[in-house]
């Protein structure tokens, strides 16, 4: 390979990698771009896999980040179903599983994360599922429907969204959670209670404070989840949603600095100046909170894709964003922004019983995070107040007679 032809190689064709390729072209990058993905298909949006797509409300074409024709038209060489096995930063090359070596001038690692596996007996039975890729979602969808029962291990967003979608498809759903409440790692207790009640009222069962001992099956297929208590939860499929771990082995083996993710700076640059990393795989400093963290969200993937594309094309860096995410369950739109670090108080605005409320997490008189259910104004205003590090009055924040526009003014 002629090294003069080397441009940007992006390893990982997910939301982050696909967006980086598109932005590089938008920003006028004219050198070659190679986008390499292990999955057999072009970049697509993962969020709908547990929501609209699972319920059959959106089709495969709508999922795609860009139309199939985009890559050729934009001069992006998309190589799907291809695995990168090693990086050689000193030579600026990488090696594929086929043995082929490719040279880069700039490398972007967008290798994402993978579902954390539950290593218990029976985990290899068919019907024990995870939800990350389109193929995972196909398998899950195929096991849902009237008369079917889905056991969900882990009461996080993936599990709750899948449960809501399972109910919409006429299947039963039971959520098994190790902690005494769902969303224990990520949400306020008021929210956990609200979501538990909302799901229960729509037919989802919850088994809390329960640890899973084994999957049991018949003829190689899962038929139940055995709890440590001895209880057996019968099911036709089991979805394991207990978090994700970063795919950083390539970076580690190549000697890049890593923590719980590939360490990057505010331009998404790794410890090697020719290598950027973006998305779920990164461990990034959060200036707003004065600490490093690994964020798993589309917003993070896109922000870092912008950072890397700006840096590579010599554009000024994009403005720092307050991290945010959302989850759709039934008719609920849950939006959250910021992270609840160093929180010493929470303020509830609105009545959870009304199905429209928000929880503000405060450190002193500043908002660190906001969680909003069917409350877009609270979400948007909260996000802006977090970004501005504005001092807020607890009583005004809690008073729904004062609009969020006034509170944020």
């Amino acid at each position, binding site marked *: 390979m002629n090294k003069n032809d080397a441009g940007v190689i992006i390893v990982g064709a997910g939301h982050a990698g696909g967006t980086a390729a*598109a932005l590089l*072209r*938008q920003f006028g990058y004219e050198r070659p771009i190679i986008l390499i993905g292990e999955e057999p298909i072009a970049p697509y*949006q993962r*969020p*709908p896999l547990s929501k609209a797509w699972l319920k059959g409300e959106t089709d495969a074409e*709508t999922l795609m980040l*860009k*139309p199939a024709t*985009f890559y050729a038209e*934009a001069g992006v060489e998309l190589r799907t179903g291809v695995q990168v096995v090693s990086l050689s930063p000193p030579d600026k090359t990488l090696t594929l599983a086929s043995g082929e070596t490719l040279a880069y001038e700039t490398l972007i690692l967008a290798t994402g994360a993978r579902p954390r596996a539950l290593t218990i007996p029976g985990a290899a039975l068919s019907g024990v599922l995870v939800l990350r890729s389109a193929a995972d979602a196909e398998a899950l969808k195929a096991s849902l429907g009237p008369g079917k029962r889905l056991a969900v291990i882990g009461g996080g967003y993936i599990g709750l969204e899948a449960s809501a979608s399972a109910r919409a498809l006429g299947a039963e759903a039971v959520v098994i959670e190790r902690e005494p409440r769902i969303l224990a790692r990520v949400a306020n207790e008021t929210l956990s209670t609200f979501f538990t009640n909302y799901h229960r009222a729509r037919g989802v069962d919850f088994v809390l404070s329960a640890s899973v001992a084994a999957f049991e099956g018949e003829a190689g297929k899962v038929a139940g989840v055995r709890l440590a208590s001895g209880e057996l939860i019968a099911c036709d499929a089991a979805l394991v949603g207990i978090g994700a771990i970063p795919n950083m082995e390539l970076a580690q083996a190549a000697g890049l600095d890593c923590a719980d993710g590939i360490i990057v700076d505010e331009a998404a640059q790794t410890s090697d100046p020719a290598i950027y990393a973006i998305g779920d795989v990164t461990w990034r400093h959060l200036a707003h909170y004065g600490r490093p963290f690994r964020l798993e969200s*589309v*917003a993070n993937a*896109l922000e870092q894709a912008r950072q890397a594309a700006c840096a590579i094309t010599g554009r000024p860096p*994009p*403005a720092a*964003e307050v991290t*945010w995410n*959302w989850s*759709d369950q039934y008719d609920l*739109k849950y*939006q959250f922004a910021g992270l609840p670090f160093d929180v010493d108080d929470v303020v509830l605005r609105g009545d959870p019983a009304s199905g429209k409320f928000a929880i503000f997490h405060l450190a002193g008189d500043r908002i660190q995070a906001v969680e909003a259910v069917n409350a*877009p*104004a609270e979400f*948007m*205003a909260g*996000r*802006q107040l977090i970004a501005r590090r504005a001092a807020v009055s607890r009583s005004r924040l809690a008073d729904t007679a004062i609009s*969020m*526009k006034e509170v*944020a003014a």
Partner: protein
Amino acid sequence: MAKITYIEHNGAEHVLDVKAGLSVMEGAVKSNIPGIDADCGGACACATCHVYVDPAWADKTGTPTAMEESMLDFAENVEPNSRLSCQIKVTDELDGLIVRMPESQH
């Protein structure tokens, strides 16, 4: 199918044929038009697909839902003709639609 003209903040025009059933946002994103970010992919969760609908088209594009209104309330440089383009469904009726993009979505 509808012909839609997207005008960037710097004046650059992009005329696209957008399939009925897609949103005005999807039409731009699928053709990699700068100026519409649509971070949430059309879930009305982020307000990064803000556009100004040409006043002549205000009636045909309909009125925003309460959800969209609330999100727009906090977007930058909002005008009376501001909309979230993920919430405007393309129909044959919208053939000729003109939308302008704000300076920034973030």
